């Protein structure tokens, strides 16, 4: 927290305000998604990251505009933080033709390639080997851009994590591996899925730096990823950052939360990353309570407008469905 206090006073106000805005937009986007789902307006599934917003937002805050991300099925926060148009995101969630993936991908596969968001993969850990190739292309082209590769705690038990992180280390690629560690797979707690206390210790096996971070402290996340990005940009290779956080909602809509206690969920709700950041901003005198509330209200208005507009968008046509399978 010492670092976080220092950052509050040293980071440009614009950046702090951006962090709060993106976390709020993510939170409201997902609350709106739940609402639309409850109203029967959504065909498919969704994976909510409510409670985890600091990890993607703090991480992506450490990037330069040309940098890249690859993320996962619980990827609304990454997509928003990478600068997505929330109306087009909402349109994709609703399966509409103007959506980011023209209604072919849905909530789990939002990509905005020109915006540096190389997409969300729905098979746990699959983005990690692919990230190796993206970072390889950056290195071979002598680019100074870097890639953030996000995945969950469950992914770190897969072979693809091992193969991918090892190869990225061997080739000293400009990638930062970031674990959005919400401490559960679908229902499997990490304490039953691995025999170590901290995922970051896995970095030792690949000869790269690993750091465990309070994933509900957006400034701590920012600082850890900033250091890792700096290393990557200087050609010093990958790092592993383990942002320990918690998802308040179930894995997806079918989850009845039978594998964890209500007390545990409530305890983590009291550690809300947004409430905590707001308090820090106000307590430190960086922003007034009114300024913070204005950011929140604007975020809510952005999401409301996006949903309203996206609901009016046209559905895609099944005609020519094969057209996007192959590139010309």
């Amino acid at each position, binding site marked *: 927290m010492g670092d976080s206090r220092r950052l509050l006073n040293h980071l440009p106000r614009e950046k702090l305000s951006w962090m709060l805005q993106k976390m709020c937009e993510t939170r409201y986007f997902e609350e709106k998604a739940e609402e639309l789902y409850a109203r029967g307006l959504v065909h498919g599934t969704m994976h909510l990251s409510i409670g985890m917003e600091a990890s993607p937002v703090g991480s992506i805050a450490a990037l330069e505009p040309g940098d890249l991300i690859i993320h996962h099925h619980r990827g609304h926060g990454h997509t928003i933080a990478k600068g997505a148009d929330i109306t087009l995101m909402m349109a994709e969630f609703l399966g509409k033709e103007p959506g980011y993936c023209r209604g072919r991908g849905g909530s789990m596969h939002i*990509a905005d390639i020109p915006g540096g968001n190389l997409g969300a*993969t729905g*098979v746990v850990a699959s983005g990690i080997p692919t990230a*190796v190739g993206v970072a*390889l292309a950056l290195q071979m082209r002598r680019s100074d851009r870097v890639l953030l590769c996000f995945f969950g705690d469950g992914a770190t038990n897969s072979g*693809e994590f091992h*193969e991918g992180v090892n190869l990225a280390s061997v080739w000293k690629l400009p990638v930062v591996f970031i674990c959005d560690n919400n401490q559960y797979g679908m229902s499997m707690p990490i304490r039953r899925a691995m025999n170590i206390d901290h995922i970051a210790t896995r970095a030792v096996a690949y000869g790269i730096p690993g750091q465990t971070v309070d994933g509900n402290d957006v400034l701590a996340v920012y600082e850890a990823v900033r250091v890792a990005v700096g290393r990557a940009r200087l050609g010093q290779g990958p790092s592993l950052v383990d942002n320990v956080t918690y998802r308040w909602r179930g894995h997806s809509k079918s989850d009845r939360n039978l594998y964890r206690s209500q007390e545990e969920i409530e305890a983590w709700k009291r550690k809300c990353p947004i409430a905590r950041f707001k308090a820090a901003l106000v307590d430190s005198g960086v922003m007034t309570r009114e300024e913070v509330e204005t950011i929140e209200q604007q975020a809510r208005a952005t999401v409301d407008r996006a949903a309203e507009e996206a609901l009016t968008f046209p559905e895609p046509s099944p005609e020519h469905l094969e057209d996007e*399978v*192959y*590139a010309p």
Partner: protein
Amino acid sequence: MSGVSGREITYLEAVREALIQEMRRDPEVFLLGEDIGVYGGAFGVTRGLLEEFGPERVRETPISEAAIAGAAIGAALMGMRPVMEIMFMDFITIAMNQLVNQAAKMRFMFGGKASIPLVCRTPAGSGTGAAAQHCQSLEAWFVHVPGLKVVAPSTPYDAKGLLISSIRDNNPVIFVEHKLLYRDRGPVPEDSYTIPLGLADVKREGRDLTIVAYSVMVQRALEAAERLAREGIEAEVIDPRTLRPLDRETIVRSVCKTSRVLVVQEAPAACGVGAELAATVVESEAFDYLDAPVRRLTGRDVPIPYNRTLERAAVPQVEDIVAAGRQLAREGR
């Protein structure tokens, strides 16, 4: 078809020449795989390439098939043209998630806004005594997946032209090389040339029956056709060359002419490429021309065994194709 050049090289040399010419032409083309550098690859296909192109473009990897595929996919997503090698097609199983769930899907699920121009070269097939985990023909698995293309050349000429086309294609292409074909010699022009993906080739003309075969089975079918000719049976041999996309027209046209079709594949029968070829015929106008049921000749329903006699018995040989062709030519007369 095979150009005017009299020069003959092997299938292996043709593959290598395609790689060299494309790497010289396009700096975005690079190779990655296990032991492809100093060692030259398990079968020697990439021998000498490290010296010309250096370790950055002839990129050796640890034994990590998923990471090899992922590295190729990510680089392709960024616009490079990686050619990955999977040492034996059997090992492609370890890269299946990357190839099937990532490479094949990204374009479509991102709304047509990404492309993955990669080639996965892999030696397949039996006949080397390497037994059940180094001899499989798994091409049908990939033919089943929208988003992938699958190429299986049978001659040195086709290998070069199809590999160049595969490298220039903007989609993921599984390029299946047969180990027993590596030493086959044939005429191959020195200059670069392409063969369109999705275009079958009539390897031999005939009027009495059509044999559709691919990869090493084309060579066996051609030898079988010569023997059948001595008995007065003229077989037409069609090589689809590309299994996805499949040139159905050329196959259907041939069967309309001959009224009999024998489909030959090395892999076991169930849900194999031969089943798709047979369905292609019976779903088309050629059905009305058939004088006998479509006949499939396939590998037996077993893993590839080690012993030489057992291994030969597990997959169609020339004499099996002759016998099946002879029988089919007589049916329905």
